[in-house]
Each structure stands twice: as C-alpha cells, then as structure tokens.
C-alpha cells in the first residue's frame, strides 16, 4: 500500500502522471471503452433517464430518513441470525474486523472488492495482526501484488498494461515454470484463477463490501462480474460485510430500480453477471454458505455530511461513470488524486472524509465541463459541490498566495469596467499579434505550467464583450 494520503501533493502527482508514458497508454482504454459502452446501453433503454430521476429521488428519501432505515435494517439482520456492528471511525471499523478474525483464530481472509475496506485501511490492519488478507478481484489481486492502491473504483488496475501484469506474475509466482507462456491476457487470467482458487478454499473468513443494504429484509447485495465476491462469501466459515451507512435502500423494489442504472452507468452492461442477495448465515437445511454473518456499518464522517451542502454526495452508488467521463481523470489517472476515491466523486468526497486542508487541490482539478453530472445515475451536481469546496478553501485561506493575489488583481479591474475593457482589449491584441500565423502558443512566459502539457489557443483579436456588442448591433439592424 502506498503511503496515504498523497492528496496534498496532487500537483506533483499529476505532473508525474502526465510524464508517465505507460500510464498514458493505459488511460487510453478508459477514454474509448467506458464512454462508448455506456452511451450504447443507455440508448437501448428508453426508460433510462426516468430511472435516473427515480434513483435520485429514492436516494434523497433514504438520506432524509437514514436513522429510521438503519434501525429497521439492523432489526431484520438480527432476525435472520446475523450480527450488526457499528463503527464511528475507520480505526473502529478495522478493529472490529481484526478482533472478529482473531477471536475465530483466522489466519487468512479472502476479500471481495470493497472501496470502503480501502477507506478504513483494512488490509494493513489485518496484516499488523498477523492475518493475511487476499484480494480476489483480478484487478485488486494484481495491484495488491504490486503494493499499489486501486486507481479506479470499479477497474482498480486500469492504470496497467498487459506487460505490467505479466512482469508482476513472473516476479511473484516463482513456483510456476519459468518458460510458461503468458503472452495472452487469457493465460494471465487462467494463472490468477488457479492461484486464487486455492486461496478461496483455504480462507477462514470472507470479507465483502455491499452495493446495497435492504432494510425490508436485512439483505446485503453485491454486484460483480467475476464471481470472486461470491466465492469469498460462500466458502469461508464467516462472512463479514463492511459497508458505509448510506448504502441503505428501503425495499427489494428500490434495489431493482438502482440495479437498472448501476451496471449501465458503470461498465455499460445491461446487468452485471452476478447480483447476489445475502441474508444471514446458512440455514438449517443449507449444505453450503457461511455459518456466521456479520455486518460492519461504517460512518467515518458521513453523518456529518447529512444536512450540509455536501449531502447530495451521499447519493453516490459508486459506479465510476463520473471518472470515466472526466478529462482530468483521463489525463492523470486515479493515483494522482492521492487517496481512495479518484475523479469527480473523489474530488468532492475526499475533502469531506480527510479534510479540505489535505485534499483542497482535488476540487480545483476540474475544468467544470459538467460531463460528470451529465452521466451521474443519481444526478449528483458534482461541479456545484466542487465549487462549494473551492469557496470553503478560499474562506479558510487555504488557497495558495499566487491564486489569492491573482484573484485580488482580477477583482481590482472587475470593479473598474472601463479600465477592465481597456486592459483586456490591449492584452488580447498583443497576444493575437504575438501568435500571428500560428494561432497558438507552445510556450508563454510565466505560464510554463500550462504550456508544458498543452498549447494555449491564441485569441482571435477581439474581447468577448466587444464581439457581443457587435453581434447585438447586427441583430438590431436585422430586426
């Protein structure tokens, strides 16, 4: 695991990411695949936009009644023979799971993919207690071997290329023949499948996350394509579900509504391969399944977000569509964000969970193009929430001196419209003259930070205000 969080060094991280040729090659897959697949599957479903509205309204209803739903959910879990644990903080959540594992004499834990388990630092906590945690999602397995954090919430190894995976398997799986053929992705998958099969069968405890917790029945729902989350929960003796408190949905019908937007937004599938509803431990006549079922409900800052200007962020169902469509994510990848949640949802959530003093750069890493909001299945106004963080950062004097000075300078001119028009007009004419014939700048004094990665388009020669005036005059003449 990398040293967490590195969000304060976002600028340095981003610079390194832009210079990383391997990473840039891998990120090309995000730009093309995810966007086209989501668009195609959304087009195929006439009800898709109405389902998004319904999903938004449902999530708002749950958040407004979260305390009552949590109590109802807990009651049903207990009725079905399960146990519910409450954790105020990340440390408390990890401690509950470590204590559970220790008291059951567990030596190894098989893990289904879970972002909240990353958030609470579960693997490191288990490791410290001498318990081996094995990530079983193929992407998670690869990055765990590499000692990395996920770079995407649903495609954790999206920053890697096939050669990286082959190199890692050769480095770690030393007991396999050296001359084996790993030139195809199929052979890499087959090797991981065989290695992990043994680990599933040996695990004492299985830990999974939850996409939804159903209050009506005390059911936890996970959604996967590989089936690893299922093997993690039906083979070990104990199944532990770790989930944050806002994952609650009222009924199975509500879960169905959210499932219809989740996979389509995430991977562009009509439905993920495995949607699994788990309720309590195995029943008297069951021949397989866990003997114990535990749920750890994690708050870790979320109850403070309720009723605040960031409450809408808690609608999130973790599909990853916002990062799949984000030009900033496309450019720098997920690791640059420096903590568990990257992309636009991370830019809003991370400051809420670890503090705007540490993560203040993230909401600034946005072009405000609005694509994230336009694809969000629960219609979270992500750009608006990022703007809230910018305001807070400014109020708390956390923004750097240069931007504060720049803003002050701009405010000076903005309060003097005649002077503003004169100065901008002059600057624009000067820039247009300097770029004559080329139309863009490859480098500019004082702006090398910008021009190192892209060219600055040169102004056409007139200010917006001047062009607007001319346009209005033309229209008046016509009418």
């Amino acid at each position, binding site marked *: 695991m990398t040293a967490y969080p590195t969000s304060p060094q976002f600028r340095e991280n981003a610079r390194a990411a832009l210079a990383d040729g391997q990473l840039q090659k891998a990120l090309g897959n995000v730009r093309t695949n995810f966007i086209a697949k989501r668009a195609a599957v959304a087009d195929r479903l006439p009800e898709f936009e109405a389902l998004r509205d*319904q999903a938004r309204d449902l999530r708002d209803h749950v958040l407004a009644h979260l305390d009552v739903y949590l109590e109802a959910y807990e009651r049903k879990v207990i009725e079905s023979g399960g146990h519910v644990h409450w954790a105020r903080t990340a440390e408390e959540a990890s401690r509950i799971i470590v204590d559970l594992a220790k008291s059951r004499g567990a030596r190894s834990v098989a893990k289904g993919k879970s972002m909240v388990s990353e958030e609470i630092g579960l693997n490191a906590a288990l490791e410290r207690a001498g318990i081996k945690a094995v990530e079983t999602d193929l992407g998670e397995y690869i990055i765990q071997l590499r000692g990395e954090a996920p770079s995407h919430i649903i495609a954790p190894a999206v920053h890697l290329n096939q050669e990286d995976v082959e190199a890692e398997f050769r480095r770690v799986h030393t007991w396999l023949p050296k001359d084996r053929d790993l030139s195809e992705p199929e052979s890499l998958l087959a090797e991981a499948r065989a290695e992990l099969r043994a680990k599933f069968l040996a695990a004492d405890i299985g830990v999974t996350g939850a996409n939804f917790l159903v209050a009506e029945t005390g059911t936890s729902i996970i959604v996967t394509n590989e089936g690893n989350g299922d093997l993690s929960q039906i083979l070990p003796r104990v199944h532990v579900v770790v989930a944050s408190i806002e994952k609650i949905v009222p009924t199975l019908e509500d879960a169905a509504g959210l499932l219809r937007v989740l996979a389509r937004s995430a991977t562009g599938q009509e439905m993920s391969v495995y949607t699994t509803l788990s309720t309590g431990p195995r029943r008297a006549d069951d021949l397989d399944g866990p003997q114990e079922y535990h749920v750890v409900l994690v708050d870790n800052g979320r109850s403070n977000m309720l009723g605040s200007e960031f409450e809408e962020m808690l609608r999130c169902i973790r599909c990853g569509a916002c990062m799949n469509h984000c030009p900033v994510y496309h450019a720098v990848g997920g690791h640059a964000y420096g903590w568990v949640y990257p992309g636009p949802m991370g830019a809003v959530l991370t400051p809420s969970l670890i503090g705007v003093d540490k993560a203040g750069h993230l909401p600034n890493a946005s072009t405000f193009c609005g694509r994230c909001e336009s694809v969000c299945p629960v219609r979270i106004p992500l750009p608006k929430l990022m703007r809230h963080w910018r305001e807070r950062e400014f109020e708390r004097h956390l923004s750097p001196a240069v931007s504060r000075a720049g803003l002050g300078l701009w405010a000076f001119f903005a309060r003097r419209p005649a002077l503003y028009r004169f100065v901008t007009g002059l600057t624009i004419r000067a820039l247009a003259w300097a770029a004559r014939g080329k139309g863009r700048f490859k480098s500019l004094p004082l702006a090398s930070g910008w021009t190192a990665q892209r060219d600055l388009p040169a102004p056409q020669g007139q200010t917006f205000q001047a062009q607007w005036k001319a346009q209005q005059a033309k229209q008046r003449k016509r009418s």
Partner: protein
Amino acid sequence: MSAREDILSNVRRSLGVSGIDAPRRASVEARLAAHARGIAPQRGQGDAAARLKMFVEQAQAVATSIAHAADVNEAPAQIAEFLRAHNLPAHLRMGDDARLRNLAWGAASLEISYGPSAGDDLNSVSFAEAGVAETGTLALVSGAHNPTTLNFLPDNHIVILRASDIEADYEAVWARLRERYGAGIMPRTVNLVTGPSRSADIEQKLLLGAHGPRRLHVVIVGD
C-alpha cells in the same frame, strides 16, 4: 455512548430531527410494507411468448448458450449433447432437487453425484427459481435442493429453466420470494446470474471464466 447511539444521534442532529418523530417513523414503516414497484422496462413485459423471446435474446447477448426441450424429460439428452459438443466428461454434480433427481440421467449415459461442490467438479446442473426477461437473467436460490457452490465452482454450469417461470422483471422474482418464504424473509442466498463469469481487468479486454463458470448453458423447458 455506544458507537450505535453515537452514529444514530449524529445522523439525527445533522438532519435536524428527533428519534421519536412518530409521523417520520410511520412513513418509513408504510413504505417498507407497501414495497411499491417503480419503473420497469417495457421490453420485458408482454405475454409468455414475448418474455421467452426477450429472455433468449438478452441471455445470448451476454454469452449464455440456450437449448430448448419440449418436456423436462428431454433435458438429460439435451445436456448430454451439450457436454459432448464441448468435449466434456459425462459427469454432473447436483443438489437433491426432486425435479432433477427424478430425471432419467442414466438413459442419457450421464453419471451423477449429489451435494455441494468442493471445487473439483467440472460440470454442475441447477434448477432455476425463475428467469427474468428484461436482461436474460437467472434467479437461483440457496438450499439443499440447489446448493450455491454449484453456481460458482464448476467450470460449466447448466441450468434448467421452465419457460413458464420466465418473469418480466426482477420485481416479479421478489413477489415469488415473498410468496414462498414470507414477507420480509429471504433464503440465505439469491443469485441473479446474467451470463458466464468474466473480467475486463486487463486492458479492458473481455475474458470469460474469471473465477466462476466459463460456460453458462440454459435448457429452457416448455414453450
């Protein structure tokens, strides 16, 4: 205060509500009891023939293979044919579902063993609780009849589905579960399965057979 009380009281403080607000509680109880249906895609609705057609179309689109049998007694021969076509051994693992147990497997030269899987079975067969037309999804429920390990550990998962059990949407499956287990009560595991296991974690290339079955074969019985 316990963590539970701390969290609940912090939620209430943030929402500006009290824990004893009776109308709020009543509205939640009413919503849970009503479990009203939301929007379901039109594409899954329609009569039995339309649902069957949509199920097959959707299932095949996600690499589920489909065979049809006019009668459940034809299923063993259909399954033997599938195993031969893929060069697989004539052995099946299954639970003790009477609908499976009573079929004439021997007549199709198939060797049968019973019980959950410990990971060394190549082929398994399950009887589906239902199918869902809208996405070509199978609903499988845990129990001694159809143990859950059979859905995941074998390389080839074969499922018998009655055409009359193909429902329009997930909500219809929930209704069946409530009918069978009682309101608010669920079996340990309900698996909604849409195609064979897959992963796209290496360069976004779609590969079948990640941890679960490489092949999912559905024999639809009746029409």
